[in-house]
């Protein structure tokens, strides 16, 4: 990680000094243990604050839409997939973007850390190869990193950036196919069980829209939940059905666009299992149309193509 940090700093400084870009968007050290925070470096001195760690969890593609300036971005696998999708949607001008790609084998989920510590506060986290040391007031525990990763990272098959202008470190070994076991397991439950689970999860929603705002693909000028004339959906968070409706529509709007980066779920302060829904869509798009979001520059976006052989199970019983 230290090596990657040094490499990122050098690359960023060079780009800024040579005036190849106006701005480098990456991560600086945040204010909480092992927490990277999005950072905007415009000078070589500022670039010195850039860092890389298991806490660089945000999807920086979110900051790249419709920019006028020349920007370099420090992007891990999932950020790059979102970037590719946004380029295809004309939200990012590839010519103005320089991708500093960082191979990634997962980010640490602070919610999992907290759950593991059962209420004890972590004051420092130190990475140490495959393990991380969690330190608090009267304790120090060594835990396997794999047990602490975000679920999206555990499922991720594209930790290596699929597109980049410059690569930091070395590419990581490829992983096998995603089996969507979680999606299948949930789908196998009865409708009543599924409904009960969703109701329980979404009763926690406070409609803060952190999920929507953290998602690089949620960029409608006016989100349907905000529209008041007509009022498509009730504004009250007390109504669980409306909370579910909000999320279901969000997921439908991201069909073939969601890179399964998990940014929505990471952002949710209430710890709602949002990927259950987003992954169902990712799985459907893959199975029905053999499409995956942003895995290369050539494939057309799933929603932008049509073939006579497209399955239409929702229209005609096959």
């Amino acid at each position: 990680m230290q090596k990657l940090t040094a490499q990122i700093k050098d690359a960023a400084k060079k780009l800024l000094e040579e005036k190849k870009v106006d701005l480098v968007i990456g991560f600086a050290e945040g204010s909480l243990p092992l927490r990277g925070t999005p950072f905007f470096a415009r000078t070589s001195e500022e670039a010195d604050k850039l860092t890389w760690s298991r806490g660089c969890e945000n999807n920086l593609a979110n900051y790249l839409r419709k920019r006028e300036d020349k920007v370099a971005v420090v992007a891990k696998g999932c950020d790059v997939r979102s970037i590719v999708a946004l380029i295809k949607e004309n939200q990012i001008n590839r010519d103005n973007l320089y991708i500093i790609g960082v191979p990634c084998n997962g980010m640490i989920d602070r919610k999992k850390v907290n759950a593991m510590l059962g209420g004890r506060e972590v004051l420092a986290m130190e990475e140490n190869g495959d393990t991380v040391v969690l330190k608090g007031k009267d304790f120090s525990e060594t835990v396997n990193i794999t047990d602490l990763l975000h679920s999206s990272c555990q499922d991720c098959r594209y930790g290596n950036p699929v597109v980049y202008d410059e690569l930091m470190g070395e590419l990581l070994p490829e992983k096998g196919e995603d089996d969507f076991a979680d999606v299948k397991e949930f789908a196998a439950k009865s409708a009543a069980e599924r409904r009960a689970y969703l109701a329980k999860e979404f009763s926690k929603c406070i409609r803060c829209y952190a999920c929507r705002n953290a998602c690089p693909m949620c960029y409608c000028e006016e989100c349907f939940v905000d529209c008041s004339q007509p009022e498509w959906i009730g504004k009250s968070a007390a109504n669980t059905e409306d909370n579910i409706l909000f999320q279901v529509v969000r997921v439908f709007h991201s069909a073939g666009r969601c890179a399964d980066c998990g940014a929505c779920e990471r952002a949710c302060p209430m710890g709602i299992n949002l990927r259950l829904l987003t992954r169902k869509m990712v799985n459907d798009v893959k199975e029905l149309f053999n499409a995956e979001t942003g895995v290369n520059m050539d494939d057309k976006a799933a929603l932008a193509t049509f073939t006579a052989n497209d399955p239409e199970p929702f229209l005609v019983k096959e």
Partner: protein
Amino acid sequence: MIVSKKDIPNFLDKLISEYQVFAPVKEETYTLFKQICSGADAALDAGNTKLPAKEIFFPQSEKLFSYNVSEEGARLEAPVDDQKKVIFGVRPCDAKSLTLLDNVFNNDKYQDPYYLTRRNNTIMIGIGCNSPASTCFCTSVNGGPFDTKGLDLLLVDTGDAYVVEVVSDKGREIAEKAGFAAAADANKDAAAKVKQDAVVTCQVNIDGLKAKLDVNFYDSIWEKIHEKCLGCGACTYLCPTCHCFDIVDEATDCNGCRVRNWDSCAFPLFTLHGSGHNPRTSNKERYRNRIMHKFKYFVDNFNEIACVGCGRCIKNCPVNMDIRVVLEDIRGSEARLDS
């Protein structure tokens, strides 16, 4: 006075027969204030709740009135919740936040019947914080882990028992009725020791902050500060002092109700005018408002800072926007104080 921890469920059960009792309840990985039906449900050892206690007085969605129009005419019902309540286990920062909200919902110009009726009918029993979190900075904003503002009783956790401090007459009445025993000198000493040992390590220097904010509305620092903020409502909705709301009608045909929902200055709709004009056109103006409202406008209006240092926004912001860092950046900025 003193009450043994094992007698708390019993004490709460007795209260439940007379009051709606709210206490922190365990919800998987965090706690939330909920109305409890059994004293055993209260989870009192888990730090502060995910959402603040303000929700009990100022619900996220509140039906102000419902209406119905028929051939006989219009009918309107405006129920005001006047049930007697006890909030048990509230932390000092949240209790203080209510004294701040009182300024907004109860002043010369306006008295909000929904909020005020609940406030007047509620007894607040707080628990002091023996081990403040690293994100707590209550002592920097006129509070503290054993502060009694907004409380009727304060309990100090001394291990097996709580030493009870009476703060108000209402508190005395409830403590006497419960028959709490008198605290021995040893218990009082133990409580004093606990208080002394509970150190809030995080200090935020706010000296000179207000003077800066008085003049830096147009400062370029705002361009930088907001940059990573996503403009979501997480910090607002989790903040015990944020109190902005939006009023909407929810109606079908001849039946409807008027609902007051929490709103957030981070949202693009927040000050959108009917004309389509929005004075806060971008996230920069919105984030500036968050800071200005808490540390300048509220101070101008009510002579208090609208932040109690609970640290919820710090722990929950999806991009680690840390209000302590933001305030320090502003304080250290070059804003001219003479302009």
